């Protein structure tokens, strides 16, 4: 039997849905503090002077410059939190800023932010995260701190209707259907 490949992906729309929360942060970045997320060259300098939060697994053994650069830029820097807590951090933010490289993942966070109708700022040089933003008729930004900073200010106080796109394409039901279709092909 030949090996087949298909796409199966989605987000937990039951957990990640719009929340009416007081906005505490201008920018929020949920991601492991790893080099390919580009905290140091992009996120930290982009949010300098703004109210920002970054959360994720923090390591002292390698790539500690990722979270240290955030702390030095005045970012509230938190270790991994539960999914329920993550929902509240998303909901308390005007925008989710994903500076990850193309090989740096973060597609999951993009879908979560979109499912909550929060402005999601991704980098134009990451086809992985841009895919969803472009499909929802939104626009990625150039991977430059000043461009990101300006976009954070531009979208502050606004929301999106991206949840409609997620519910039509990338819900847990779509994910489950795609998995079952693939499994039934090999049984």
């Amino acid at each position, binding site marked *: 039997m030949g090996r087949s490949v298909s796409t199966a992906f*989605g987000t937990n729309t039951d957990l990640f849905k719009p929340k009416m929360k007081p906005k505490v942060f201008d920018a929020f970045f949920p991601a492991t503090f790893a080099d390919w997320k580009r905290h140091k060259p992009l996120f930290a300098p982009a949010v300098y002077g703004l109210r920002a939060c970054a959360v994720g697994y923090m390591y002292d053994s390698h790539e500690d410059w990722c979270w240290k650069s955030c702390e030095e830029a005045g970012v509230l820097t938190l270790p991994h939190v539960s*999914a329920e807590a993550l929902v509240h951090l998303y909901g308390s933010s005007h925008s989710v800023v994903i500076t990850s490289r193309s090989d740096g993942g973060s597609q999951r966070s993009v879908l979560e932010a979109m499912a909550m109708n929060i402005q999601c700022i991704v980098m134009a040089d990451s086809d992985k995260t841009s895919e969803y933003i472009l499909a929802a008729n939104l626009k990625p930004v150039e991977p430059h701190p000043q461009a990101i900073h300006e976009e954070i200010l531009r979208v502050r106080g606004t929301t999106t209707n991206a949840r409609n796109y997620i519910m039509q394409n990338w819900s847990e039901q779509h994910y489950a259907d795609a998995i079952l279709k693939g499994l039934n092909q090999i049984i």
Partner: protein
Amino acid sequence: MAKALRIAFIWDWNICPEQAITWQDGLAAALRVIAKNHNVILFTIDETRPDYVFPHPYFPIHVKQNGDNLRLHIKELKPDVILHWGDMTRPNGSVGTELGIPQAICFAGGHMEGPSLMHMDHIFV
């Protein structure tokens, strides 16, 4: 409606309890959806303790101390299909081949080339 499947799901990493208890992403939610109409049994590994069941909020996860215990449990279970979650370097990627059970993988990022690749009949990306 199609026949209910018995699906063994293998999270092929040593368990990190902090991560496991908060695992509520799209995949966890999708498995919960699938489990409404199919029998989904989840497994992972903890080399530090004898076998136990981890109380994830969506479903129990059978935590096996090693690959031998995992294979034994799956052999007794006789699933229709095995669904892995990991990359192509995981140590238990061959379990389906060994037991004559078709298997697929939800590719979690990481290494796309590795010994598990030849054992997968389907890859979800």
